[in-house]
């Protein structure tokens, strides 16, 4: 394999990983934007989505539905997985975050952390500690650009990720609910005065953010072929780094930050010792927080809130 093909291959990997991080980071940034809280349980919702998708997929495969109606079964896998995690997100919000909306920040963060520990151990108990295999529904078919091999699965996942991000963008910029969301993020009391149902808006945010995370979880499962109860942790830290890098609270920022983190990680593992790649991500995150806490696309107002 010559250098160009190698680079193309790595480019595809980077775009894939970048879109995964972007999808997870969007959940962080939306929740942070609207209630100024790090949703520590977000990584667990990513994993829960992955497991839910796996359960649906296995069920469909058992009855032979995947072979006969492939597209429809993918829609079901993603739809049901995302719907389940959306309801899970709202439940967490209602049980653990809503009562603490006016309490100290420390209390809210600790409650979020408690939820995260609870969910990750719940998944460990019900799904076991070992890796669980995803059925290879896409097979290994694909096409070649020079020597680089690109499977149809990769193409499908990347297109789906971009489609989700694009529809989120349309939702936030042009629908009424999206506008209500932005207004609530900017100024909660003012939004309430203008007749926006703030509680409902927050609930919707807690459905969309985790839903996107769940989609990312299913994609990771389909792409790498396995899921584990604790895989959410490392993705969570990295996606959080992405959200900070892009400027927390900013939706295009999260997409950009996710892409950058994905490219940095792939470049690092392609050319430098790959066991240090996680350390690099953390160092990038800490440097961004130290040097420019508002991130690349964040408003400077976030700096006051730090």
């Amino acid at each position, binding site marked *: 394999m010559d250098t160009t093909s190698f680079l193309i291959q790595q480019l595809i990997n980077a775009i894939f990983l970048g879109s995964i991080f972007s999808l997870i980071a969007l959940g962080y940034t939306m929740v942070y934007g609207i209630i100024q809280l790090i949703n520590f349980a977000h990584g667990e919702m990513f994993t829960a989505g992955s497991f839910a998708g796996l359960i649906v997929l296995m069920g469909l495969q058992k009855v032979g539905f995947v072979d006969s109606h492939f597209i429809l079964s993918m829609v079901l896998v993603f739809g049901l997985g995302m719907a389940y995690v959306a309801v899970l997100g709202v439940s967490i919000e209602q049980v653990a975050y809503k009562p603490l909306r006016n309490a100290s920040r*420390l209390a809210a963060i600790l409650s979020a952390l408690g939820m995260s520990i609870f969910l990750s151990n719940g998944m460990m108990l019900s799904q076991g500690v070992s890796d669980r295999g995803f059925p290879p529904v896409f097979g290994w078919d694909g096409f070649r650009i020079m020597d680089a091999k690109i499977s149809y699965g990769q193409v499908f996942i990347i297109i789906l990720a971009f489609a989700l991000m694009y529809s989120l963008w349309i939702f936030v910029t042009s629908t009424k609910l999206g506008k209500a969301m932005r207004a609530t993020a900017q100024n909660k009391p003012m939004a309430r005065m203008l007749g926006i149902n703030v509680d409902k808006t927050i609930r919707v945010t807690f459905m969309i953010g985790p839903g996107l995370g769940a989609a990312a979880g299913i994609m990771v499962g389909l792409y790498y072929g396995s899921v584990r109860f604790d895989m959410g942790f490392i993705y969570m830290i990295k996606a959080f780094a992405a959200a900070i890098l892009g400027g927390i609270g900013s939706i295009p920022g999260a997409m950009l930050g996710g892409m950058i983190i994905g490219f940095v990680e792939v470049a690092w593992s392609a050319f430098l010792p790959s066991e240090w790649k996680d350390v690099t991500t953390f160092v990038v995150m800490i440097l961004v927080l130290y040097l420019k806490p508002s991130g690349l696309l964040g408003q400077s107002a976030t700096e006051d809130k730090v």
Partner: protein
Amino acid sequence: MVQSDLKKFFTYSFFLGILILPLVGFATTTFDAPRAFTVWGVFVAILAFGLIIKVIRHSGGYKNLSDSLAPIHKQIKDKLTAVPAKYYILALLAFAVIYPMATNRYLVDVGITCLIYIVLGLGLNIVVGLAGLLDLGYIAFYAVGAYSYSLLNLNFGIPFWFCIPIGIAFGCIAGCIIGYPTLKMRGDYLAIVTMGFGEIIRLMLNNWDKLTAGPNGLYGMAKPALVYPSITDGGLTWVTFHLKSLEALYFLALAIAVLTVVGVRRLDRSRIGRAWVAIREDEVAAELSGVPTMWLKLLAYALGASFASVVGGFFAAKLSYTNPNFFIFMESCIVLCIVVLGGVGSTPGVIVAAVILSAVPEIFRELQNYRMLAFGAAMAAMMVLRPEGLIPATRRKRELHAAEQHQHEES
């Protein structure tokens, strides 16, 4: 009133029911129905119990009961507070000293674990409870202590007692390295950065094969030794006594724990302690009142780190073995759980919580797997229902109640 309670009951049980879905027994292709209904049943029963209590409270039955019990409650409370606190402390100490003689080896080992967690909890309490800086990577300092003892002892043969001050120095340095970039941050950012630092240290220990032997860990460190003079026929000689027995190690752990309790107590009541509380409450106001916030925050990190480092050195010496997997993020969470459940900023609370959290899983061994599940749920529930913890710090309790009163006035 009851109607709104009923509505609340159904919505909350609906949400909780979804929340515990990951628990109910979907094992990818099979669904374990009996297990699912048991888990759901337990949760619904707990909620229904809460509802019944609430209904009784509203109907006035609870009030009559609590009114009739109030004098007895007051009497007991008066009797308990009549005994000076120092007697309680003495009784507790006496119990701690007698404990290893009255029990078996296994329980002594559990006791050592308890004492280690007490020291860790109190050290983290300085950072979280007093200075109000959330630290999710605290276990990294424990790792620094363990590895500095292991490496110094294995490579240079330095004995335990000399390694401890060196370990403290390393711990302080690590604390300052983590503390310095985070000085400007508050709350959530701080949490995530300290979490990142904790992971960086663990990954370094894991990947730096040449120095730390990677995931295999280091083994063969000497146990701590006491050297004392002895007069024999030949005159004065020095005798080395290795603390090899579990009892001896228990007493060493107890000594470290007692020193920590005393140290943290003194710090809490010192000028520095009050300055930390001032920073926690309002950093700008503290700075304007002449509190050197930057130095004190660094000091909080450094002191918290040095306690963890001491006990980390002890841990490595006790096992004669260390391994990066002892220092995973979950361990930081356990220590944080101890601080939160005990009551943020409260020394007795932290001690009680450390004993409960490390002893209960040992007693109910079959429930071992559910340990972290319960801790996580307890942490969230504690924040929602009783944010001041099991045994609240006096200062903090007053603050929280003042806030409640304030809210009442507002509404």
